[in-house]
């Protein structure tokens, strides 16, 4: 059980959508809540882990988190799991049979779509899962609704004996609003009932259960027609009636305050008869749904004429500044020129690796290697695809670096025969879905060198613990995975496994050069922690002796954001070749003394700052 903390009493609170879901999950008397971190859903479990009276966990992947939740539901407890949109792809194997068994204790699956793609590899629409799995989907429009619909979802789940999907988007998860909260109810689980026909999904048991999915769906549809979660806002301007799902309700109300709106909360199965009646009261219907034309297609199939993706974009958020011109065009009106200043061209500012990030050493080394194909994965180290390293060639899905590397090795022709295949994967991603891929590499004798970057954290989502840290979601000690032993157990020869310090560039380079020459699976594990986690120990910071800097720019190639170019120049060498020079300084207050930039500096211009300055994170930087 988690460390008991003082829980804020029922009050008017300023909560993000994620905070609000967490609060409601706790109030609903949930006993088990599990998740794998993923933007924009991560904070739900982080917040929930601070509430008392329930088991919370980071699971190793979303599928396991969903199975943990299902197990709790089987014994009659209320259960919850959360994930980002792509996480539900991983968990879908469990979902697609869980919908056949149904559930006992209320089971709610929160899935957060990254509409606008702030931090994901695709923009898929999770509302499809409701149709695919025949389970209800609830779509809140703000924090208050996220709270209320989470509570409603547990009740609906228990009424229908079905998992319920709570579909969030970035613009719900990461928006704060005022929410009136309540108190927790305690529910004693009814207990597990042994019943193979219910829980053992062999064909003979599963087949008779299939009709239950459709009966349940019919019941949900009937409920959607009368549910207070689906309602109509009247309006005097009946030229266009809007049908909205999720956060678009707020955008439509903002942009068109006088228009009638049909607001869907329980949006799957859609209340088609109510929508038909609504359509009859307006001149034209416009369906405002982000990404896929799902409701639009269903309404058209039901014979309800409407507009949708013919006038609205299929990609990204449908905020008021997107809606207004589109609706004007639909009405046949001119779109006025904006009165504000036009958007200014400013350099891009892509995310960077942190000062002293151990991945810097890895990517600096990879960027120095020739004839190498680098299969990448999902995490901070995906940034290795950017400048100055340009040392990551693929990024697909969690753990994909393994399988794609093997496929490249097996499929390559003459043109790639002399290339080395390297796979780069982080500790948490490796345990999430990479281990199986490595096993496939060893089993099928792949010629792949795996770089396993163990920074002891789920870095990109904020440094959460994982089985490699030896700490659970509460920071308490637990079993810890030994990656070298794990890789050996997966079939990598002991002499092909190296644990190296990524701050020691010559050691890392030697290990990589040697292992890529040997035509069998090998694993190089780097062992420096993420600089953002509490356990990171900064060292003495560095500075540049201006007189010694020759402007060679080698340190700039490391890619550390604490290194700044102060002056550029050009020189013509004896050979006649023109060379660019970059003279540098180090932001000493940001430097944590990893020493990576010192190593490629030939003139020894980088030395420890003296006197030692206090070490601070990058905050305000002087001109």
């Amino acid at each position, binding site marked *: 059980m988690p460390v008991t903390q003082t829980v804020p009493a029922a009050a008017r609170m300023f909560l993000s959508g994620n905070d609000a879901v967490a609060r409601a999950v706790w109030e609903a008397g949930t006993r088990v809540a599990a998740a794998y971190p993923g933007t924009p859903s991560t904070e739900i479990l982080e917040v929930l882990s601070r509430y008392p009276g329930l088991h919370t966990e980071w699971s190793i992947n979303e599928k396991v988190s969903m199975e943990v939740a299902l197990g709790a539901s089987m014994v009659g407890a209320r259960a919850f799991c959360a994930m980002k949109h792509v996480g539900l792809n991983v968990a879908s194997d469990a979902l697609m049979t869980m919908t056949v068994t149904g559930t006992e204790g209320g089971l709610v699956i929160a899935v957060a779509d990254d509409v606008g793609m702030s931090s994901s590899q695709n923009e898929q629409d999770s509302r499809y899962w409701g149709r695919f799995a025949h389970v209800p989907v609830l779509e809140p429009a703000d924090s208050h609704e996220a709270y209320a619909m989470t509570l409603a979802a547990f009740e609906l789940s228990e009424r229908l004996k079905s998992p319920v999907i709570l579909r969030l988007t970035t613009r719900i998860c990461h928006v704060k609003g005022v929410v009136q909260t309540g108190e927790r109810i305690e529910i004693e689980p009814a207990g597990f009932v042994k019943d193979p026909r219910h829980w053992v999904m062999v064909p003979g048991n599963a087949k008779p259960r299939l009709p239950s999915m459709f009966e349940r769906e019919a019941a949900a549809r009937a409920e959607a027609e009368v549910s207070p979660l689906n309602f109509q806002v009247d309006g005097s301007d009946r030229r266009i009636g809007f049908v909205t799902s999720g956060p678009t309700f707020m955008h439509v109300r903002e942009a068109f305050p006088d228009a009638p709106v049909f607001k869907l909360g329980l949006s799957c199965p859609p209340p088609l008869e109510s929508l038909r009646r609504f359509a009859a009261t307006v001149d034209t219907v416009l369906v405002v749904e982000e990404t896929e034309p799902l409701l639009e297609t269903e309404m058209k199939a039901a014979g309800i004429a409407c507009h949708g993706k013919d006038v609205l974009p299929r990609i990204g958020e449908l905020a008021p500044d997107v809606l207004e011109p589109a609706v004007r065009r639909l009405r046949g009106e001119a779109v006025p020129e904006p009165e504000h200043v036009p958007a200014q061209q400013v350099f891009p500012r892509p995310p960077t690796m942190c000062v002293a990030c151990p991945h810097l050493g890895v990517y600096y080394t990879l960027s120095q290697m020739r004839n190498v194909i680098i299969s990448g994965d999902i995490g*901070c180290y995906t*940034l290795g695809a950017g400048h100055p390293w340009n040392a990551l060639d693929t990024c697909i899905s969690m753990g994909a670096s393994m399988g794609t590397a093997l496929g490249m090795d097996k499929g390559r022709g003459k043109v790639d025969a002399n290339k080395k295949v390297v796979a780069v994967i982080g500790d948490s991603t490796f345990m999430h879905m990479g281990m199986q891929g490595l096993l496939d590499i060893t089993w099928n004798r792949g010629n792949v060198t795996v770089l396993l970057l163990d920074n002891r954290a789920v870095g990109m989502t904020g440094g959460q613990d994982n089985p490699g840290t030896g700490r659970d979601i509460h920071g308490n000690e637990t079993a810890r995975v030994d990656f070298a032993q794990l890789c050996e157990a997966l079939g990598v020869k002991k002499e092909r496994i190296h644990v190296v310090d990524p701050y020691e560039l010559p050691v890392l380079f030697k290990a990589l050069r040697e292992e890529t020459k040997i035509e069998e699976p090998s694993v190089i594990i780097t062992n420096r922690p993420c600089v*953002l986690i509490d356990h990171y120990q900064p060292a003495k910071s560095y500075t540049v002796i201006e007189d010694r800097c020759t402007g060679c720019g080698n340190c700039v190639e490391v890619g550390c954001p604490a290194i700044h170019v102060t002056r550029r120049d050009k020189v013509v060498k004896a050979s006649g070749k023109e060379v660019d020079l970059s003279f540098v300084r180090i932001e000493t207050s940001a430097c944590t003394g990893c020493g990576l930039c010192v190593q490629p500096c030939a003139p020894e211009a980088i030395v420890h700052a003296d006197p030692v300055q206090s070490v601070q994170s990058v905050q305000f930087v002087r001109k």
Partner: protein
Amino acid sequence: MSQITNILVCGVGGQGVMTATEILAEAAISLGFDVKKTEVAGMSQRGGVVTSHLRFGKVVLSPQIVPGEADLLIGFESAEALRWSHMLRPGGVALVNSGRIVPPIVNLGLFDYPEDPVAKMRALGLTVHAFDATTIATDLGNIRLGNTVMLGACADHLPFPAQVLRDAVLARFGTRKPHLVEANRQAFEAGRQAVGGDALAA
């Protein structure tokens, strides 16, 4: 629409943009306003672009400020203020830290940092109050006070008294870091004075 106040805070991941907006939101909530705040976080912790939208009024619907509707643009970094200047409504005000954070992409010589972002904004006809929050904070003895300097600078540009925001700032430190209350009080006042505001009685 007109009763809603729209504040856009922008900067670079790690600067404290979201915390500053949170404090502004707390001040608005303390007066009973309906408040919504949103940002695109995601990968922004890694030195990327960060914007935080704050809207408050009687009832707030959409959490997003659309281009040309921000009453106030608070730029924690010069080039970021320029990047988001199209969000200001005609007649809106920009409060800009003249300090710069130069990203690796500029250090590598792939892009140029604008010569003078504040001058560019003024040339566009925008009302800009620029000040060096970094130096003000450093002169007060702690570079981390820059955040409070920025909040002080916007205190006299809000539809409520400066004292409400100052109370919200100090309330934060009062419980978490009481030894920093006085330093933050000074930083807040220094920020106000940097844009021509009068001192509040302590």
